[in-house]
């Protein structure tokens, strides 16, 4: 079988380094936007997915993050920080999305179409069910606490990295983390499936209970 059309289209190869790519973006070089997306989309997608879980609007948020980034490309001071800069934009986009969703749920409280979980795929395994439960638990946290929790524990960032990505001071991040952790643990106990899944390999949640 021959190559597909996508395989026949090769992204522009003018930019080998981030410096060249950012210069090309700033000067409006044709094709630079596509290269920029291709280079960082996986990383941004990962951040959005970590904060939101499975969400049908991730493709829209993904493009939104890159549009915002291009609009603010002049603000990027240090070229070696493109990835963390994009992570910050992604976190802000995700937070706005969480708040929008919360308002929507409130406004359409009695409309099942508006409030149903918008996962693309039905649960087909324990891990997937547990993942859904995890994000239902995270849904109960305030957006800022949820983001702190996700950046620190799911994305595995250091405290300074997580604070930078969330756009807050280290002290604020620590306060949010502490609150998020307590609430998360308390709510996990109300979800037996999730608790069992998380307990595999550790006694951490039970020790917390005792």
């Amino acid at each position: 079988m021959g190559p597909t059309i996508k395989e026949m289209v090769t992204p522009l190869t003018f930019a080998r380094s981030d410096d060249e790519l950012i210069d090309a973006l700033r000067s409006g070089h044709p094709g630079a936007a596509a290269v920029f997306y291709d280079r960082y989309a996986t990383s941004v997608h990962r951040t959005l997915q970590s904060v939101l879980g499975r969400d049908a609007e991730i493709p829209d948020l993904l493009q939104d993050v890159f549009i915002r980034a291009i609009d603010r490309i002049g603000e990027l001071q240090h070229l070696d920080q493109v990835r963390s800069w994009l992570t910050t934009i992604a976190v802000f986009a995700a937070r706005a999305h969480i708040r929008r969703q919360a308002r929507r749920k409130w406004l359409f409280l009695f409309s099942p179409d508006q409030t149903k979980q918008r996962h693309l795929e039905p649960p087909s395994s324990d891990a997937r069910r547990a993942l859904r439960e995890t994000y239902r638990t995270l849904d109960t946290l305030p957006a800022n606490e949820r983001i702190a929790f996700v950046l620190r524990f799911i994305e595995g960032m250091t405290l300074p990295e997580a604070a930078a990505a969330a756009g807050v001071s280290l002290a604020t991040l620590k306060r949010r983390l502490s609150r998020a952790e307590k609430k998360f643990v308390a709510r996990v106990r109300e979800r037996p499936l999730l608790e069992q899944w998380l307990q595999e390999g550790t006694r951490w949640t039970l020790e917390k209970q005792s």
Partner: protein
Amino acid sequence: MDSREAELSRVVGSKIREALDAEAAAGDEIRLGRMRFIDRVTTRQVSHAFERPRAWTVTFRRLSFGMVGAAAAVAAVFVWLRLPISFQIDSDAGPAAIAGNAGDLIEANAVVPTALRFSEGSSIVLERGGQLRVLALESNGARVLVEKGAADVAIAHRHGPGKWRFEAGPVTVDVTGTRFRVDWSPESRSFGIELKEGSVIVGGECLPTPRRVQRGDNLRVSCGTPATSTTAAKMDVAAPAPVAETKPARVVAHRDTHAADVGDWRELVAAGRYAEGVHAAERAGWSRVCRSANAVELLSLADAARLSGETSRAVEALLILRQRFPGTTSAATGAFSLGRLAFEKRGAYTEAARWFATYLDEQPRGPLMGDAVGRLMEARDRAGDHTAARRDAERYLQRFPEGPYAGTARVILAD
């Protein structure tokens, strides 16, 4: 990090991360996001154009609704006229046309040509083995770099003069509305252009002065090696011309107004000159050609018509193919192509589903089976037959869990 925090990070974080990574939709989401992002990047001039009038509307808020409406209509027309054109890449090598991006290298493989269709009606058919890039898109044209090989070009003449420029090595071709064939060999640094309609201006460092090339002209320019530049290059003129030895490039020009008329449609189609092949078949009598050609030739002719935008001709050739050669593999392939035309060109999803089902009935293990099931599922879903679409989705995933329609199938099953 204290031990409790480390445990939380290790257990919750790693488990959730692992489960998220196991989700199959990441690639689909990234591709979908890319498509929307590129669409927004190419059309964002529109939103910027709207931002400026927004301040104006404050000033004119007290004007009558009629005047505001008229101003908005004028602004919309203005913006529409300034919208950069877009293009799609179409080839038999893939399941469907995809949106093209400025700057990407587009390659036609050794088996099938690739067509680029622009939103204002222009088209470029890149021949087998050719490579080109659309460098920039504007409201009334584009800048195209032919890196290698030959391309058949048809520039639409709409909304006033267009602004198209083709570049091939050091040679430039400035175009308004016209049809021509251009080729460039980077190895021999040889450039050629054959005008079928209209005229163009050919310039660049290989030619001493820009030169107008008109309908019927066939210009060939040899630019020498890049290192020798213009001073070392030589120029010969086949026909008597005032340029002889003093000119730094080799230019051979001759007029052949009957080339297209005498060309056999089979040869033209085989050479990838689709639009010409279709016109030659029309001149020879389309119905007569369709009734004398064999099954393989009919498929080629239909493909040529499809790639050059002659949808109704393609449908006609395929229906005659099915009528004349029933029960053959070619007839089944014809059914698949008819489904594709109904789906992509006319949005006739019920009809498309019928043709894809016909292909599967006639060739249940045929080479296009996977694509046919995927397209059947998509056509039925779009036609509103969700029950059948779900059945097709299950069938598809069972057979091709990682196939190109797997993402769509999962979405259909989740709805």
